[in-house]
């Protein structure tokens, strides 16, 4: 099939965007899942959509292509462009603009026959006027009713059609803000596309955009949560390169603003417990019947949250709950450090021991989730203790390994120039 800049199926491009944006070190030969031609086509598409962000590097293995985006500088998420590439037929686009013009120009609802007659009139001046049969026009009207841009209603036993209410005036800055920070923000980007040229007044720091590719899956998840429906998730196991199916009751979406990942907290029928599912690993979903257990399980999850540091509901030990505590020291001039404990902790308690030291302690399902945070206090940790002794040993060994990495295994005091 001839190359086209547009695509029919988003899932094809989803994996390539992830590879080019998140990883960006693979050469053409390493994209083994798809054929060489498929790689060339997807690369060409991404170059066309995101030319300003595509970069290349020549290595021994070949040319590497990657997307390099500093989201503090780009005020609009460039990956949203991928969602604006849906292919369509020649008839689709012709019919769309004529149909909407007919409905927007009418001062009263129109019958189907009237719409069809007018379509033919619009096309008369073309050399070989296109013909839209009854079924095509009816399908398009029904599609637009489902999308919400056309209203179909009965009038004297006859169905008539009119355009839905015009879009209200929107605050551009508000739409811009939420297009970058709210779930499914691509909807905001679609709205901004319809507005006249405007200046940007907002920028974003610590801004993750990797979730962009998962927007449609997330929409379906929200729909299932809202309807209290069960869902079948098709999950990609990236380590085993296989797809598993899980039937779950979706309960809540947990979002990280420190790594950009999004998780679905859901009750798994197979494992009979509430677990976290990475949304970027979900390849497809199916919304099933309404569950009568939603309210009970949502309440159960809410009760668990004070003991979940990240998203994990089960630790490596056999204990239901794992205890963790550590003590830090600070000087008179470092009063921002105990404040850091307070503002950054997600659960647990902070106890000020004296004017120069504080202790953090928590009981959580999985203490391993705290390790990266605890390490951010390296240089001032005076004590630590984990009820999961395997984890405690690992923490100590990692620290020794870090000393070794920087040649500090024996020397106590280095002076750096």
């Amino acid at each position: 099939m001839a190359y086209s800049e547009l695509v029919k199926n988003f899932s094809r491009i989803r994996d390539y965007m992830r590879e080019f944006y998140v990883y960006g070190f693979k050469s053409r030969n390493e994209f083994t899942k798809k054929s060489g031609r498929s790689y060339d086509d997807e690369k060409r598409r991404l170059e066309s959509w995101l030319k300003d962000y595509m970069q290349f590097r020549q290595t021994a293995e070949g040319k590497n292509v990657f997307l390099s985006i500093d989201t503090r500088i780009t005020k609009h998420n460039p990956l949203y462009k991928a969602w604006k590439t849906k292919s369509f037929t020649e008839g689709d686009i012709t019919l769309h603009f004529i149909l909407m013009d007919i409905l927007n120009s009418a001062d009263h609802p129109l019958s189907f026959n009237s719409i069809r007659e007018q379509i033919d009139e619009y096309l008369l001046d073309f050399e070989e006027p296109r013909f839209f049969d009854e079924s095509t026009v009816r399908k398009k009207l029904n599609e637009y009713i489902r999308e919400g841009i056309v209203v179909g209603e009965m009038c004297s036993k006859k169905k008539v059609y009119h355009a839905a209410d015009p879009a209200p005036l929107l605050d551009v800055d508000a739409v811009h803000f939420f297009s970058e920070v709210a779930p499914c923000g691509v909807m905001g980007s679609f709205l901004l596309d319809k507005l006249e040229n405007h200046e940007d007044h907002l920028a974003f720091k610590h801004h993750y955009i990797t979730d962009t590719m998962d927007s449609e899956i997330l929409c379906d998840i929200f729909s299932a949560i809202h309807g209290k429906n069960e869902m079948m998730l098709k999950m990609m196991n990236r380590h085993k390169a296989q797809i598993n199916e899980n039937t779950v009751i979706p309960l809540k979406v947990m979002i990280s603003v420190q790594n950009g990942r999004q998780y679905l907290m859901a009750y798994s029928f197979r494992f009979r417990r509430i677990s976290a599912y990475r949304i970027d690993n979900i390849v497809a979903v199916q919304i099933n019947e309404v569950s009568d257990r939603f309210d009970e399980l949502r309440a159960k999850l809410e009760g668990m949250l004070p003991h979940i540091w990240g998203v994990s509901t089960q630790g490596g030990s056999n204990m239901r709950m794992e205890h963790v505590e550590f003590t830090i020291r600070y000087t008179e001039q470092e009063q921002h450090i105990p404040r850091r404990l307070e503002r950054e902790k997600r659960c647990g308690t902070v106890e000020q021991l004296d004017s120069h030291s504080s202790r953090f302690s928590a009981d959580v399902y999985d203490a391993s989730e705290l390790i990266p945070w605890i390490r951010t206090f390296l240089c001032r940790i005076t004590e630590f203790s984990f009820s999961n002794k395997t984890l405690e040993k690992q923490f100590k060994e990692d620290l020794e390994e870090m000393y070794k990495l920087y040649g500090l295994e024996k020397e106590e005091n280095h002076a750096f120039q």
Partner: protein
Amino acid sequence: MLFNELYSAYYNTVAALLKQAMDHPLSDSELSEIIHQHAFEESELYIRPALKDQRWQLIQTEGTTCLKKIPSMPLTTLQKQWLKAIGMDVRMRLFTEDTFDFPDVEPLFIPDDILIFDQYSDGDDYQSETYINNFRILLQAIRTHTPLSIVQENKHGQKLTVLIQPDYLEYSQKDDKFRLIGAGSYLGNTINLAGIISCQPIKENPPTDLRKRNPLKLRSVIFELVDQRNALERVLMHFAHFKKRVQKIDVNHYEVTLFYDKEDETEIVIRILSFGPLLKVKAPVHFVNLIKQRLIDQRSCGI
């Protein structure tokens, strides 16, 4: 459905072309310009012939159109659902009193459906009337390029007045805070909104000697990554929002070059430390020394 041609760049481009063609016959150069403005790098290769060959029967040979009204599209149900959802966010009032109450649709999500689990807890108070009022004054001044006089409190509790030419507002979702970025203040280019007591636009006799804003001071750090415990994915996801380069060294070693603003250096140091022995900073020397000093201090704690 989210992936839908109704939202596509091609439909938006054709809408812009039709708008122009309703005003006057569309020239070839206008056609190119509009396509490049609204679509992608290669789009002209597809859109131009489709219109010229009358496969898309919307623009006649002489550049006119049979349409009667400037193309416009009502909001889709999904757009209404999303607007209704964001209308429930407390931050909406910073911008507008509108709550997007479309009675015919349910919100796409409600606040209870979502939890941002690692956001810092001392974020700005978006329900404070003073904060909302200040935010709106700042935003309006940015829109109209009007200098501002801002009264803020320093860390010693003293009131300070600064003059600033506001440029834009920067939001950090991790900190859940807004900062005003501008030029002219002798205290710097950045003002935390939470620290502003009051502000007002300077409409008459605006200051002419405001300092220029310092550009971001970009620095880089190079570290080696060993891909154990899924470190490759965790590290690259964690640092995804920076401009960066990744190079594979051997089967499980990678070299990452990360570009960051100088003012964020301490933050980068602790973020690298959070990965433990799976990352080793290679360069520059001063950054290696920052890591080493932290480890030496840690060792002095007896652990």
